[in-house]
């Protein structure tokens, strides 16, 4: 990577290869870390669940450790794309390559920490804009550490063709408070602090009733208008709170 003019890490390839086919990206080199066993797998120690960056979604969905400690995360992984996509696409690729995918909502909603080959970055500081993360040139995500919450859940409304979330909401409740992360609806995953405050006072779907979800900053495209996305955020948030376990 250090010698590549404009290299990219190729993880499961389910975001990068489609973008190459569409000529949206023109890297000089692709580096495939797929053979590095240390980047794969799930470990749990002291209330922290750590998942290797090259772990495919299917392995997270089927992991007994993930299912037992953060069932919301296993459910989220089981709901990404389709079985074949889940067999290839990885946590690291989803986190580094697509800030509107499902996983970024879990990272933000659980207050996870992203481990790279150089440092550790809090999820709050990691997702910074459209297709932008805090990663430096040539920096690779090696793992993500998720603090185990009291309860959490993810609810999304998927696009019919791509299966990407038109709006997805991850709700996590821990001793540090309530976090509500919204993905798919804006240019980048974001937290909804009004909902967090409302849920901190009363952790029930009714707490969100009557909250106005700001439309500004939300995406409008052929799948949904910004107004519709704002409405969906409220609906998905209520569903997520109701499903929290």
């Amino acid at each position, binding site marked *: 990577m250090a010698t590549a003019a404009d290299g990219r890490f*190729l993880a499961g*390839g*389910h975001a990068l*290869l*489609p973008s*190459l*086919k569409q000529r949206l990206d023109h890297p000089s080199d*692709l580096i*495939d870390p*797929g053979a590095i066993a240390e980047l794969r797998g799930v470990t749990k120690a002291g209330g922290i669940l750590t998942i290797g960056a090259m772990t495919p979604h*299917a392995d997270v969905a089927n992991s007994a450790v993930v299912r037992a400690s953060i069932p919301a995360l296993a459910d989220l992984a089981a709901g990404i*794309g*389709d*079985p*074949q*996509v889940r*067999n*290839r696409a990885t946590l690291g690729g989803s986190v580094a390559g697509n800030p509107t995918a499902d996983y970024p909502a879990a990272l933000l909603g659980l207050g996870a920490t992203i481990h790279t080959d150089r440092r550790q970055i809090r999820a709050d500081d990691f997702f910074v804009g459209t297709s932008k993360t805090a990663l430096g040139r040539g920096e690779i995500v090696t793992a993500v550490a998720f603090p185990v919450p009291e309860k959490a859940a993810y609810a999304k409304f998927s696009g019919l*063709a*791509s*299966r990407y979330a038109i709006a997805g909401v991850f709700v996590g409740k821990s001793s540090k408070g309530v976090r509500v992360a919204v993905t798919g609806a804006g240019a980048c995953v974001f937290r909804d602090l009004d909902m967090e405050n409302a849920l901190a006072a009363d952790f029930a779907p009714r707490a969100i009733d009557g909250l106005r979800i700001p439309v500004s900053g939300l995406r409008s495209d052929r799948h949904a208008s910004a107004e519709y996305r704002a409405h969906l955020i409220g609906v998905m948030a209520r569903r997520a709170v109701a499903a929290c376990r």
Partner: protein
Amino acid sequence: MPSVSMIVNGKPVSAAIEARTLLVQFLRETLRLTGTHVGCDTSQCGACVVNVDGRSVKSCTMLAVQAEGAQIATIEGLAQGDRLHPMQEAFREHHGLQCGFCTSGMVMGALDLVRGSPDPSEHQIREWLEGNLCRCTGYHNIVKSIAAGAKAMRG
């Protein structure tokens, strides 16, 4: 050009290919195994599904060089001579195909399902088919075929 080696349907193969060659192109154009189809080329339709080290994947969204050293199974490797694989036979018996374009991907995906769940429920089968599109059958007969194929494979 980089060289790539893998085991396809039990046979070792290697070839010098352009680095950008997709696995499906390698199978169809280099090895002439044209039973694996390209439908959408956008990882949605599942016509290109093959099994890589036992797991079903969309071969239009994987580079051939990423399959270096892997065991690949395609539809051509299933039948033994004139005898169809039980999953293929179930599709024939239960009219699980009409035009047949999606069928090889359906069958290869079904084998991965059965690997993890030898006795899948109808719900599991329908969920599993999320990434395999069929525009002819309406899926009912495909679901029946997979259930019957799984049963036949249990013996």
